[in-house]
């Protein structure tokens, strides 16, 4: 039985005993969607969620510290970078969760290797081939009626959606994808050998997805003209498409601010905030906000002590955002322990990134996270029951 056949058959299985994800598939308004936002290059968590009340912060960052008066204050201890002010409304509505201190043991400081660890949810010394979302969706395949299980908007590889049996596609915008997919044609006569069969299977996957994703929805919400704004619009259109997808990945970068960080970082965070706010507004408009979780991730944070070039070097743990109508807003994880840095001057992690993933697998999708992650990680309480 090939994958396609399997998917078709699985759509016929009665809902009893199936996961929330698969069960949700029958009715598009019941579907639970995850939109991942990759912050590429290693975002500076400390200047994103600012621990302004910790005297060590200003001491480590004589030039880069965000002045207390400029911080968008959230609690007595911390606040947001001023560029993130547009997110304050979501915070006030208790729809923005901030998870501080996400990382992993034995951190690897190479961009390439560390994002591979994040994408595959491996241990630091382990090499896995499939992305964690691909594995998750394998445990709970979507109904065949879905346009695709996962969509990557933009380039940079399939990341968490890389895998053999997941139905995942990469595109820049839905219309453009439909246009390009004319290069790939629909399924044809029986393949002569296994290799050709595989190629034709992928080809028809692309063609079918393109067919189903045709017809971009118009939103009253205006999206920013930035590249990230366009990616956010593509994500909103995919989310609103009746054929549906289970997971979408968009990305923003590069946050690799080794030198002259201030201006670059402020611009990137502004793009992020404006894009996320537009996405929220469009999904509210489409009545999908309760069914959507948006989560940021990235290979690592940056070193607490600023460097000599007005920048910061590769670090370890960082803060990430989760937004959604069903999200339990507020602070999660633990604030950065600036007084207990490791030998490289980096932060210890408070939350394993696989526990972060387990929250989406278990609490959002009702997928057995141990089967996907290989071990049991205690999920965070990121969603309202």
């Amino acid at each position, binding site marked *: 039985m090939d994958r396609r056949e399997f998917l078709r058959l699985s759509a016929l299985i009665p809902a009893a005993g199936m996961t929330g994800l698969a069960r949700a598939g029958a009715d598009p308004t019941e579907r639970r969607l995850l939109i991942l936002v990759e912050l*590429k*290059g*290693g975002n500076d968590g400390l200047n994103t969620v600012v621990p302004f009340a910790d005297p060590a912060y200003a001491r480590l960052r004589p030039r880069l510290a965000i002045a207390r008066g400029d911080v968008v204050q959230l609690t007595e201890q911390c606040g947001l970078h001023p560029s993130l002010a547009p997110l304050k409304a979501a915070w006030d509505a208790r729809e923005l969760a901030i998870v501080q201190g996400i990382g992993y043991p034995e951190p690897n400081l*190479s*961009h*390439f*290797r560390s*994002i591979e660890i994040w994408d595959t949810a491996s241990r630091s010394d382990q*090499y896995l*081939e499939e992305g964690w979302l691909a594995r998750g969706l394998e445990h709970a395949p979507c109904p065949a009626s879905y346009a695709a299980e996962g969509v*990557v*908007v*933009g*380039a*940079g*590889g*399939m990341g968490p959606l*890389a895998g*053999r049996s997941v139905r*995942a*596609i*990469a*595109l*820049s*915008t839905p219309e*453009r994808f439909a246009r*390009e*997919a004319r*290069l*790939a*044609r629909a399924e*044809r*006569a029986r*393949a*002569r*050998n*296994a*290799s*050709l069969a*595989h*190629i*034709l299977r*992928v*080809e028809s*996957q*692309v063609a079918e*997805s393109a067919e189903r994703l045709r017809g971009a929805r118009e939103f009253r919400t205006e999206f920013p003209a930035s*590249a990230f704004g366009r*990616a956010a619009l593509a994500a909103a259109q995919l989310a609103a498409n009746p054929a549906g997808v289970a997971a979408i990945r968009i*990305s*923003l*970068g*590069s*946050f*690799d601010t*080794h030198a002259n960080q201030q201006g670059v970082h402020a611009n990137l965070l502004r793009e992020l905030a404006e894009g996320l706010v537009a996405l929220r507004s469009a999904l509210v408009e489409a009545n999908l906000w309760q069914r959507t979780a948006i989560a940021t991730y990235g*290979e690592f944070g940056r070193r607490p002590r600023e*460097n*000599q*070039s007005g920048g910061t070097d590769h670090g370890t743990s960082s803060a990430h955002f989760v937004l959604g109508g069903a999200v339990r807003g507020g602070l999660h994880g633990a604030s950065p322990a600036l007084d207990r840095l490791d030998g490289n001057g980096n932060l210890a992690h408070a939350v394993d990134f696989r526990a972060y993933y387990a929250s989406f697998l278990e609490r959002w999708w009702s997928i057995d996270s141990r089967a996907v992650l290989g071990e049991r990680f205690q999920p965070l309480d990121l969603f309202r029951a």
Partner: protein
Amino acid sequence: MKTFLAALAVIASLGASAAPLGYGDARHLLDRAGFGATDREVREFAALDRAAAVDRLLEGARRTAATRPPAFVDDPIERPGRLKDREARKALLAKLRAQGLQLRAWWIGEMLGTPSPLTERMTLFWHNHFATSQRKVRSPQLMYRQNVLLRREALGNFATLLHAVAKDPAMLVYLDNARSRRGAPNENFAREVMELFTLGVGRYGERDVKEAARAFTGWSVDPASGAYRYRPFFHDGGEKTVLGEHGALDGDQVLDILLARPETARFIAAKLWREFVSPTPDEAEVERWAQVFRAAHYEMKPLLRAMFLSDAFWAAGNRGSLVKAPVDVVVGTLRTFEIRPADLRPAAVTCAFLGQDLFGPPNVKGWPGGDAWIDSATLLGRRQFVDRVFRAPAGARMPAVREASMRVGDARAEEGGRGGHLARLMARGMGDYSFDGARWMRTLGAAPDARIDRLVLATAPVDALTARVGTAERVRGLVADAAYQLK
């Protein structure tokens, strides 16, 4: 009577294989043994019989590259980790990145220009077998030196190659043996040499790995010259037992123990099957090749000869059964259609985008290959490459996915793999990656005919093509067909 029957059998087999290859078989041999082929090369080989054609490939095999390597390969080794000044370190990293890209482009140039494509095919085979990545080694000089070694023994002797690779500085760095020492042996190389280079997984025990690791202690690298250096003080000279052999074994003796096992020849023979014949090795035939290999004391040419002359290699059912690797798509397209861009860095970047970053395999297992080459992104990427070469007029804009990636400014560019500045380079530098239909048709001679279909595709097209045979429009249809992804 016996002699007569034997003679009859010989004559019968000659009958099958002594005939001229013809166009289709010549194309099959050259495509699998190299990277695509021009019409002229195919016609030349079409007149030879199987044995003559195979012998010509084997005898013509080079041991050195025909194109001059970039000048920096002779420069002294520079190590970014040593630099304290961050500006200097940054500048050096940028230089190493640029050199790494030049090195990839040089190899692609060699694949395109060499009179011995089989040498490059086998060099790439060994690069994938003894997978080593610039991402960790961080020295284009050491990567180049390893490439020279792989080429020297590409069709030489596997035992010689194994011993040399085990002392190759890039490998010593990549699998951490350079820092392995008595009392603290690093097991990385010892494990991989058994699992991935010789016996195959499950054909040795954990104890063998631990003991072998001790034998390789002291095999190190001189930091200044980047040359192999034996450090007697670090070597564990004690008694060891590896696969039942006991003694004060050193690394070379351990390698000889691995070479003495029949699994090793089988492992290599089966891997060659998957590279050259089909995705599903036939056990009995692989065993036959393995015996040839062992009898020839690991000389590669007798093994390759047995393989290229096997019925399996020529079997109709195995034609078009292999998924082209990205290098096959990119280099094969440029070779077959005689497109010679001035700058080959975009070709190297394209290969990386499609999943095959030369000098940068994903890990020590090498590229998984086969079906894994194709997902929706890489399939569309392949189509876009072909579309660009065959449709886009010079200087046309980039396909959409690439544009998006350029905007994204991928942080992974730092590692030399995929990324923003590489994508920009590709956008700027691909103007002359363009098929000139009229010119190419002229090179085919007066009557380009149905043989073009056979030249371009390894197997019949999947779609019914409407364009008339022998036209440039027909060629565009052929390269857009799913069958173009097969070899």
